[in-house]
């Protein structure tokens, strides 16, 4: 186990370096540099004469006049010590901006992931159980529609129906202003209320993906010999499906969860924008609108790290669940 961990972590190093270099390249590509941004913000961009000199001074103070490879080294050193820099647009350190919003996105993402995996696996098992019947066909057709819908559009349509017309759910934000005063229970209920629409939207798409995948995986598993043996022993159908078939069919689904983890944040960008959810996705959007390249790239860097960590955890979990997988080899 330890040898495997070491090897995997070693494999991550070039990828992390590559992401850093990519980030650095993108910063260089972006029009205008930090010095111009800061000079522009101090309001002296227009009068011309003193500006050139001011920008040059700022460049020197930020180390932007150093040769490119020296800048790259400085950048790598900063990133690897997790110093993500300062956002001049938002007037706060990037790490602080991100830390403030991670919780909201995690809440949104993990609730929709849990919901989608549970519903998707259940629907997938059901479709595999009644495969090629009318039920299976109807559900499969519905699921095909679900993963063809643009999520932001679905979100807006749900807002129109349940937020504007029926007024069942709030159409944006994470909680009412001043709800803290009514105690933690009221606050929790309020947040839950605000979660319904965004979580439903995010989960519908992934549910379709998990259902489709589980169905295929279950159909494969059901054709195995051990299922015939289980039937011959006279086991109950429920036991056969959930204890014997699903246990094996779930392994590929686990891989899908890993792959989806990165999409979670990406998917939350449009959803959080639609629902003004105060999370990382909304921050990403604000960074785009405000052309805050450094903030944007920091989010990219951290979410890549998150995906790497998830894939590692899932690999370990995989080995625990499937004794045929030997990590040492």
């Amino acid at each position, binding site marked *: 186990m330890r040898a495997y961990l070491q090897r995997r972590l070693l494999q991550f190093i070039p990828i992390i370096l590559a992401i850093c270099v990519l980030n650095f390249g993108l910063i260089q590509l972006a029009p205008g540099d930090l010095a111009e941004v800061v000079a522009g913000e101090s309001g002296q961009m227009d009068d011309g004469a003193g500006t050139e000199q001011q920008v040059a001074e700022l460049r020197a103070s930020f180390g932007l006049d150093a040769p490119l490879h020296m800048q790259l080294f400085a950048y790598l050193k900063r990133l690897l010590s997790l110093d993500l820099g300062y956002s001049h647009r938002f007037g706060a350190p990037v790490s602080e901006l991100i830390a403030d919003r991670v919780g909201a996105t995690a809440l949104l993402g993990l609730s929709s992931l849990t919901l989608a995996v549970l519903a998707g696996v259940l629907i997938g098992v059901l479709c595999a159980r009644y495969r090629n019947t009318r039920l299976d066909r109807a559900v499969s057709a519905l699921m095909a529609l679900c993963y063809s819908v643009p999520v932001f559009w679905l979100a*807006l349509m749900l807002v129109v129906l349940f937020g504007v017309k029926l007024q069942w759910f709030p159409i944006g934000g994470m909680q009412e202003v001043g709800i803290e005063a009514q105690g933690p229970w009221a606050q929790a209920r309020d947040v839950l209320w605000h979660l319904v629409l965004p979580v439903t939207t995010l989960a519908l798409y992934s549910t379709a993906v998990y259902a489709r995948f589980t169905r295929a995986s279950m159909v494969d598993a059901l054709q195995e010999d051990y299922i015939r043996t289980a039937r011959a022993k006279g086991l109950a159908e429920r036991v056969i499906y959930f204890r014997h078939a699903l246990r094996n069919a779930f392994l590929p689904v686990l891989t899908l969860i890993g792959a989806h983890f*990165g999409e979670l944040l990406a998917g939350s960008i449009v959803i959080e924008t639609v629902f003004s959810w105060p999370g990382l996705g909304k921050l990403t959007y604000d960074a785009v*609108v405000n052309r805050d390249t450094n903030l944007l790239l920091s989010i*990219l860097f951290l979410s890549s790290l998150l995906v790497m960590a998830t894939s590692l955890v899932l690999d370990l979990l995989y080995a625990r669940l499937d004794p045929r997988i030997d990590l040492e080899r």
Partner: protein
Amino acid sequence: MMTLLSLQARLSVAILLLVVLCALAAPFLYPGDPLDMIAAPYLWPGQDWHYPLGSDLMGRDIAAGLAHGARVSLLVGAAAASLTLLIGVLLGTLAGYYGGWIDNALMRLTDFFQIVPRFLLVIVLVAVLEPSLWVVVLSLGLTSWTHTARVVRSEVLGLRNREYVQAGLAAGMSHARIILRHILPNALTPILVSTSIVVAGCILAESGLAFLGLGDPNAISWGAMIGSGREGLRTGWYMIAIPGLAVMLTVWSLNVLGDSLNHYFNPKLRD
């Protein structure tokens, strides 16, 4: 299964033909700039038959936007999918055929692109490089090829040690000829039949970008129409509903078409 499948497949082909027809006919049906404000704002569909699908907040004809938007969606989808295929097939073939360090290096590159969240990377690329249709196509193409590359690699890897390939090598054929004439034609079927699914993914991603305001500001697109319709959310939800339906139906048709082709060409997948 077959009857419903073919019903769905027929429906999807009909929808796709309609979308292509709209895209082709758009400059003749609606010769003006679809971004021009020509009608009274807030016309509901059917309210004024000059503008059958109504007009948006600024008095732009929604039907004209839909037709011109079809051009953008199809163009971006097809171009980005072509780029995806080109990169994926090229890298997958090189990795599978030559193996060794080439394979290793290319697979690490694939790992890299699979680890970096795709839509986020596309957003970053488009935001940094300034939005235009070609930047969108390039960003989508550069980030979507990993799956194609992996599938092609495993196909090529399987074919590489077949006897007829060994025979070709022994007969002194060049690597290029073996790859182009003897390996690729056998390796490409699973990729080509699912091309329309790749196109669907690219159209979906493009609409998301345009919705966020990261599309080409000078080209009308379905996603951008949804984005600009948001301000009329409370009073004129048709402005959002109509272009969204267009995206959904197009993407659905492409997905169904890809699935049907997959079923037809990969009988092993049938259950």
